[in-house]
């Protein structure tokens, strides 16, 4: 594993070992979400987490640059670690009916590409930290025959924390305009 700081890694593609480490980290995260171990999932998130899932709109081609809602506009999630913990406490109430009986979910994470952070683009982070793009396919099956498929991409900033990684920033782009499900009761 590359743990020593080398010059000139900023913005460079991470090596094979780092990619393997990131993949394993995401597979573990997916397992926690699919097993409903949300409190354990929270432990993978850093204290200064910014977790954002904007809505996406159909725009004329010349206005396409604005097709992802800006910060401060409509979002499916716009969360801190504290607000995610608040949402997760709901599941522990025993009365969160939209997830009782619980859904079956499968988080498939793929197309992972990790680069070392360029601190010029991400103030407060170092070259040890990683900017990772990935794709997800989340299948939800609920009650007798309800089905939803959520496909999209994520851009994370993962922070080196001791021997592991923590999610410090996550932007989620769902590949839908109108949300094609009755709610969002899982995380991505």
């Amino acid at each position: 594993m590359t743990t020593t700081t080398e010059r000139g890694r900023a913005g460079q593609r991470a090596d094979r070992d780092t990619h393997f480490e990131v993949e394993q980290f995401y597979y573990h995260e997916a397992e926690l979400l699919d097993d409903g171990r949300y409190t354990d999932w929270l432990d993978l998130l850093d204290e200064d987490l910014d977790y954002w899932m904007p809505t996406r709109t159909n725009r004329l081609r010349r206005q396409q640059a604005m097709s992802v809602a800006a910060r401060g506009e409509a979002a499916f999630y716009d969360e801190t670690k504290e607000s995610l913990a608040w949402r997760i406490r709901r599941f522990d109430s025993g009365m969160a009916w939209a997830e009782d009986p619980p859904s079956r979910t499968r988080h498939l994470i793929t197309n992972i590409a990790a680069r070392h952070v360029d601190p010029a683009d991400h103030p407060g982070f170092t070259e040890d930290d990683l900017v990772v793009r990935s794709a997800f396919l989340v299948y939800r099956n609920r009650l007798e025959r309800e089905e939803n498929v959520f496909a999209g991409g994520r851009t994370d900033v993962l922070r080196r924390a001791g021997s592991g990684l923590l999610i410090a920033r996550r932007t989620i782009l769902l590949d839908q305009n109108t949300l094609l499900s009755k709610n969002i009761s899982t995380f991505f």
Partner: protein
Amino acid sequence: MTRNVDVSGLVDTAGGLLDRAIFTDDRIYRQELRRVFAPSWLFLAHTDQFHKPGDFFTTYMGEDPVIVTMDKHRRIRAYLNSCRHRGARVCRADFGATRNFTCTYHGWSYDLEGKLVSIPNRDGYPESFKAGDWGLVEVPHVDSYHGLVFGTWNPQPVSLRESLGDMAWYMDAMLDHDPEGTAVVGGVHKWVLEGNWKLAAEQFATDWYHVNMSHASALMLLSPIGKGPKDEIVHRTGRQYVDPNGHGAGFPVHPKNRFDARTVHQWMDYDALRARLGDARVEGPLTNGHATVFPNFSYLPVNGSIRIWHPKGPDRMEVWAWTIVDKSMPPEVREAQRLYNLRTFGPSGIFEQDDGENWSEVQAVSNGFITNGVPLNYQMGMGSEREDGRFPGTTSELYSDAAGRSFYARWRELMNTPAWHEGGDR
């Protein structure tokens, strides 16, 4: 003609019984589009979505696609979003700014006044062809009330203000906090639900009852950690407004009846609000209530959530929800309101999730032959409707189906009345 269903026997307001066929029958649904949606004032957009000529927003009236735009004279107008030539939509963006609407099929192009201004291969048409006859079909009446834009296809409607009646007094508790009015923050949340549109509309008109059970998990989150929902939440008293035109609004009357973000609550100048709106409104509908403007526009005053339940067949609807704020709110207060609404009544919200679950559940089981024949109970608060001397019009208890009965009475009346387009045909 037999194509219309007589729904008299399906809605028993005196007995408080409802036949489930009104949620499942395709003929009834098609009749709703003709007789409930076409003649009624329907919510289109918020005036804050239009700042300069050419700003547009596309939406639906019933299942009819419409473009809402501001013309050169800064008038908000609405047109059927369907080319007069072969019928494709002439605008397929959700919103934006443009000078004209051009169909991408053959290229017919319309200006902001809906006029047909450009036709490729024009010389192929006969001399009798007059472009002036082929403009976009315009929604004949568009009007707004405190920033909310409504339109109707009815050529001779009662005015929007008249159709709102006393409901306007209750709406002002959300829309008229100060002279600056309201603004939209951040666009529109859109999501689908497997349920008849009336399930949502009637709930927002009449159903405080479900809050304690359906939203038990959310109420716990809003209470101190480790304790159940606060007693003052569960055992609230309040009133429900019952409008003869089918609108409805319920609200607790209690000094601690707000679920809202602390930042918003602290910013509100309650003394000024009392002076402007009166004590009854500040202690009633300005707080944590629910409301529906018949047929399919609803809102939650404390969250600033306004939404429309677009019908998409007897068993499906689409929810379009905006967050509105007072224009006078500073940025950090607007942001607090936006985040609070997103986290409670967005599609991932701690309240909204459970509402969607209920409606799809009711819908899913209603197709059974026996199930469909078992009526639903709307008897709560029967006989409690009265004038209470404090709130305008007829009111009932907070826990009551009274506004629901009135909602369905209005629905029945419209369903059994030939609309203008039927030429007296029953």
